[in-house]
């Protein structure tokens, strides 16, 4: 059958060549687009930004692009560890990346991936609460590591019609009465951290072996109560709306989201043992080819009017003090206060900030051990 196969292969080769050619052409086009977008002088052009979807509003970016010729090319970010792992590989393909609290110094800065800058050089930074310009762990000899953006503690929400006794702590999640009624995020290291907080440990990301043994007991009690792991933040909200869940964990603002979804009036609280939380910011990537655009961009994108609009769209507190005044002027102070907008100095100290810890590996092993098949 050699002859047959030979002819056959030649045909196939021709077809393949065609297809490869087409792909290459497509690649060329894509490349051209990049070049057209990516070139340009230092103050105009396109920069690559890896960020969460709540850090920008497309219409705002469009306006900035029109006014200043600074265009944004966005890669979406999901989690800190994932973003960090990706930046370590692609480096200069990104110019700016967003990250949470302790990830900034303990991962990005430690690895020399980012470039600290003098935050006071930015005029817009005067609109920030002053404490946000002075997080000690974001300071280095070369400057400030990130431009602060938003924050939230992790809260517990419950449906008072189903959950009695006005709970105030983490222990309620372990109550056998609520078997199959708890929904937590699909984030193993956070679930371990919640239980570490419940056990009263101050460093839920840096647990000792003894502490891990204690936390294991908590996780085993939590397991039967967990109905499911929420893939997205809205999963928890939806479970509360439908009544399948009575207790959920999550960011600020879920009582509004549940109500908007047609669900019951729910209550939320910061657990009395203390909680974990995040505050994030924008970093400048050291090797970024277009990093010169970041500061001029921040001057535009961090303006109070835009931040106020962002608050109304995404519902969690931000660090821009002037935006709070704008919200007050607009008659939205109630809403801002419910989201603890101006309460950062009181609430931030109750939170252990998210970051890569020394016990991440063991925490994950522990989670797998407990939540694997029994």
């Amino acid at each position, binding site marked *: 059958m050699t002859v047959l196969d030979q002819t056959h292969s030649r045909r196939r080769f021709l077809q393949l060549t065609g297809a490869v050619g087409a792909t290459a052409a497509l690649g060329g086009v894509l490349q051209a687009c990049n070049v057209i977008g990516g070139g340009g002088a230092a103050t105009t052009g396109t920069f690559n930004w890896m960020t969460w979807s709540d850090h920008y509003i497309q219409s705002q970016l469009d306006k900035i692009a029109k006014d200043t010729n600074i265009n944004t090319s966005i890669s979406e970010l999901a*989690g800190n560890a994932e973003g960090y792992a990706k930046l370590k590989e692609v480096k200069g393909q990104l110019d700016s990346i967003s990250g949470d609290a302790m990830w900034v110094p303990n991962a990005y800065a430690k690895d020399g991936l980012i470039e600290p800058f003098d935050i006071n050089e930015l005029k817009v930074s005067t609109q920030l609460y002053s404490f946000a310009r002075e997080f000690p762990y974001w300071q280095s000899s070369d400057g400030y590591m990130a431009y602060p953006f938003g924050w939230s503690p992790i809260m517990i929400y419950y449906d008072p019609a189903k959950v009695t006794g006005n709970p105030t702590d983490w222990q309620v999640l372990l109550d056998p009465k609520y078997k199959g009624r708890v929904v937590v995020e699909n984030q193993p290291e956070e679930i371990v951290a919640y239980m570490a907080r419940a056990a009263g440990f101050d460093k839920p990301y840096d647990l000792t072996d003894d502490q891990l043994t204690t936390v294991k007991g908590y996780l085993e009690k939590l397991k039967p109560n967990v109905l499911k792991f929420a893939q997205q933040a809205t999963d928890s909200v939806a479970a509360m709306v439908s009544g399948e869940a009575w207790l959920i964990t999550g960011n600020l603002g879920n009582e509004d989201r549940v109500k908007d979804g047609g669900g019951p009036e729910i209550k939320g609280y910061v657990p009395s043992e203390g909680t974990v939380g995040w505050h994030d910011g924008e970093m400048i990537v050291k090797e970024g080819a277009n990093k010169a655009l970041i500061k001029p961009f921040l001057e535009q994108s961090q303006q109070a009017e835009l931040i106020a609009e962002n608050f109304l769209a995404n519902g969690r507190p931000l660090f821009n003090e002037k935006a709070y005044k704008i919200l007050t002027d607009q008659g939205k102070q109630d809403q801002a206060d419910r989201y603890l907008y101006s309460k950062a100095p009181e609430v931030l100290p109750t939170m252990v900030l998210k970051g890569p810890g020394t016990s991440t590996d063991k925490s994950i092993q522990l989670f797998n051990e407990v939540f694997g098949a029994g």
Partner: protein
Amino acid sequence: MAKAVDPLETMPVSRYAGLTRWGLRLIFAFLVLFLYLPIVFMVAFSFDASQTPSFPIQGPTLHWYDVMIHNRQLLSAVANTITVSLIVSVLATIIGTMAAFVLVRGRLRYPNGIRIAFTMPIMVPGVLVGISLLIFFSRAFHANLSLMTVIAGQLVVTVPFVVLIVASRLQSFDRKLEWAAADLGASPRRTLRHVVLPLIAPAILAGALICITLSIDEFVITWFTVGNQPTLPTYIYTKVKFGVTPEVNAVATVMLVATLLIFGIASVVLGRGRRRLPGRRRGAAPTA
């Protein structure tokens, strides 16, 4: 039913034939119901005012379609997904079919070993393939992440499916038909075109369809190899912090309707074209 039946009585067709046929029809109907039930809900949620694709229903609206039309990122994610899946399925089908021919007929030294090697990309958890590709692309090739790297990554997991499916078809393939064609004087090219390809066409079609399906939904490998042009699954994944809203249902509904329309029109047009070529497609085909 314990009584022995005289074989002659069952001729020419089994008395259960009619029953079997009706049973199979019922199973097919059940299948379509099973496959489309979630789709019905997916479509329904796109017309529902609720913020999340779930119960309770809050009332009819076209709001999400309006949101969808104005969401450039979502639309470009859909366009990227379609581009990638078309290129991946064409390339994977060609590369895979070629390899399958050699695998089955090429007198390779370790056919079983090679077969297992081709099964491996399916075996290895996608996340491992994805992260190893990310490291490899950036460290070995210094490649910029783009749709090209996404396509390359998806080819790794789609080609094996085509190889295995076409190879399995080629194995249970009566080569005497080919030899007969050659004996009757058909050139290899003609044999290939009129005997071999039509016989393995269903496998190639199945392979291509599986590739499109895998590509459209491929998330893990894409996640690691994608640059600033998201595909639909990575777009949805990155909404994790605040959740997807039903505009995604809207766009999925539009995709579904468009696909069904294209296939509907194509089958009508192709059906007409085919009828003008009488006698070409009889062969061993069963009649309805």
